[in-house]
């Protein structure tokens, strides 16, 4: 279980508070107006945004001040998820070994992950030789080999067209089901929420609300969410 205990973030004049928990294996959409702090919340979980007060606990162990790479977290950002100068296989391999010293077994895992996301035969290409959707697949292959119990997606598919984005969400959904990981995913689109999420964390007015079952909240949104959804 992921637990945010009296978490408080200050960035200049911006404040965000969160006091909530997410059950293991859940798929949670983080939604809210632009600038409400969705990315900031994920950044704090990932270790990129300093926490002013409170704790982040995973399985009741505090990871509030752990280095980003030492957390049980695989994270994809809005952009720059691949190193443009490394091949697809190297990009994925970094998720296994930070020094890229891969043995035969590691290389087999990389190849299997690439097969799983539908990138067989593209291991030696550079990201620039892939389409936008294929680049997303490569990043997801790395998430797969990282094999972390918590996956954070900060709108990595925002630049893709609607059909491609849905493909990616279906792939994410399938991968999460196979690995049993917990997913937190920032999104703007209500249809994404219904497509993939079990629960919704609504972020607004400096607060991240506790998760609510997705179907329920989308059918009968509270006033602030209704205003946002329009």
């Amino acid at each position, binding site marked *: 279980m992921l637990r945010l205990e009296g978490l408080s973030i200050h*960035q200049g004049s911006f404040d965000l508070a969160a006091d909530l928990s997410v059950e293991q294996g859940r798929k949670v959409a983080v939604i809210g107006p632009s600038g409400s702090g969705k990315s900031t919340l994920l950044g704090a979980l*990932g*270790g*990129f*945004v*300093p926490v002013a007060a409170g704790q982040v606990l995973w399985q009741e162990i505090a990871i509030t001040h752990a*280095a*980003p*790479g*030492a957390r049980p*977290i*695989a*994270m994809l*950002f809005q952009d*720059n*998820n691949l*190193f443009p*100068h*490394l091949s697809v296989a*190297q990009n994925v391999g*970094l*998720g296994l070994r*930070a*020094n*890229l010293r891969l043995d035969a077994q590691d290389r087999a895992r990389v190849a299997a992950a690439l097969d799983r996301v539908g990138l067989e035969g593209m291991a030696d290409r550079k990201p620039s030789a892939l389409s936008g959707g294929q680049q997303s697949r490569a990043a997801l292959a*790395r998430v797969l080999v*990282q094999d972390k119990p918590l996956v954070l997606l900060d709108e990595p598919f925002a630049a893709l067209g609607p059909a491609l984005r849905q493909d990616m969400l279906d792939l994410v959904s399938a991968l999460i089901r196979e690995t049993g990981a917990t997913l937190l995913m920032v999104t703007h689109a209500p249809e994404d929420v219904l497509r993939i999420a079990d629960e919704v964390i609504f972020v607004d007015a400096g607060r991240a609300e506790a998760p609510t079952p997705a179907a329920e909240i989308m059918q009968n949104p509270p006033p602030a969410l209704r205003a946002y959804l329009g």
Partner: protein
Amino acid sequence: MAQRAQPISGTSGIVAGTCVVAAVLLAFVGIGLRAEPGTGLGPAEGQAIRFTVMQAALSALISVTLAVPLARALARREMPGRTLLVTLLGAPFILPVIVAVLGLLAIFGRKGWVNQVLDILDLPSLSIYGLHGVVLAHVFFNLPLATRLLLQGWQSIPAERFRLAAQLNLPPAMIWRTLEWPLIVRVLPGAAALIFVICLTSFAVALTLGGGPRATTIELAIFQAFRFDFDLSKAAMLSVVQLVLAGGAALLALWVIPAIPLTGGMDRPVQRWDARGGVQRLTDALVIALGAAFLLLPLLSVTLAGLVGLPLMPASVWQAAFVSLWVAALSVAVLLAVALPLAGWIAIRARGSAEAIGLLGLSASPLMIGTGWFILINPIADPVSLSLPVTAIVNALMALPFALRILVPGIREALAGHGRLCLSLGVTGWSAWRWLILPRALPQIGFAAGLTGALSIGDLGVIALFADPDRATLPLQMYRLMGAYQTDAAAGAALLLLMMALVIFWTCDRGARWYAKT
């Protein structure tokens, strides 16, 4: 945001910075051991101080004055070869001083092209030695720098201003007053200060074209005290003077010195609607032609004479070329070992006072550092046997400020783009260097390495202090040939040296960019 986490730590950078500071401080210690205040500074040294300041001031003044019409003409004319000419304005950075001096001698020397024309016209001939020559050579090196600085300023004037000026049909005098003069006032003092500081510590020019009681710089006086009198106390005292003078001037100039434009981006003239009159066209064409001739004819003459001289070179030249090559290679290795961690450290700091460490290399003159180390090494080992490594290290120190200017933005960009990804994958420390920074900053690394290699291979400085006949670098060997009136062989050596400097620069710069692309 509070201090942002970064995939690399500053530790290795702090170590490298400490090494640089220690290297310079050690030289101070050496000098301090031998300098006895109040002794050794006679009228000759006073004269050297006056001459140093005067030639630097004149060089700065003339360079920036001539740069104004040249930059103005280049900024407002589009013509074939303009891009090439602007690129060539960057060449003096990698042009060996002694090669340029030989070229200038061929044009302005006693039997040079200019004097031959003057002879035919029955006019008195020019002398290139003494103050004239030193200033001439400094203008040759720094006119392009001043022109590039001004050109960069000109290009910072938004195109809309020129459109507005054209719309209002402003006459040339008003364009000058409203657009060009404010720019010149902003850029020129900094450019002049930079050139003044560079010329204060110039050695090779003074060695070849100066000399004698009336044309000796402090740097040259250190060399003479050392080489001819072996008066270490006097050399140390002069080093203190040099440090106070050049260091003080560098510190004062720090506020006005502009960013040095090392890379391109100046090859595209802004579209202009003014200055279409025939007289303006003619003067611009004349200015550009004169400027190009002044900068290119010496190089042309070196090339022509060198082609004749190449087969006449003694074997010692080839040996010296080999020595130079490995000094340059060592210098590049030392530079990268120091500059990369240092640049990494500067890049992860918010904004840096740390960059000032690089400036130590500018304010502390090469001969001063060489003298200090000689005094320290002398009791322990034979300094002559260490002359080549010392030369390589000092060359790396001299290139450090430029290398940092090139490397820091590249590393900052790599970290800004993918630092977060590295952190989230736990790719930190050496792995972050190996898999993010080195590949991403490779073009900048190649450029810095090429610049250092070219500077080092063409440098005639510390090596002249230490060397014996067996350990000459190519510039020193060339200087010896010139001194022995073996003009043809010297010209051959000059061409060889020029080619080597260009090839080293080109190989590192283009090679790295090519590798980064594939």
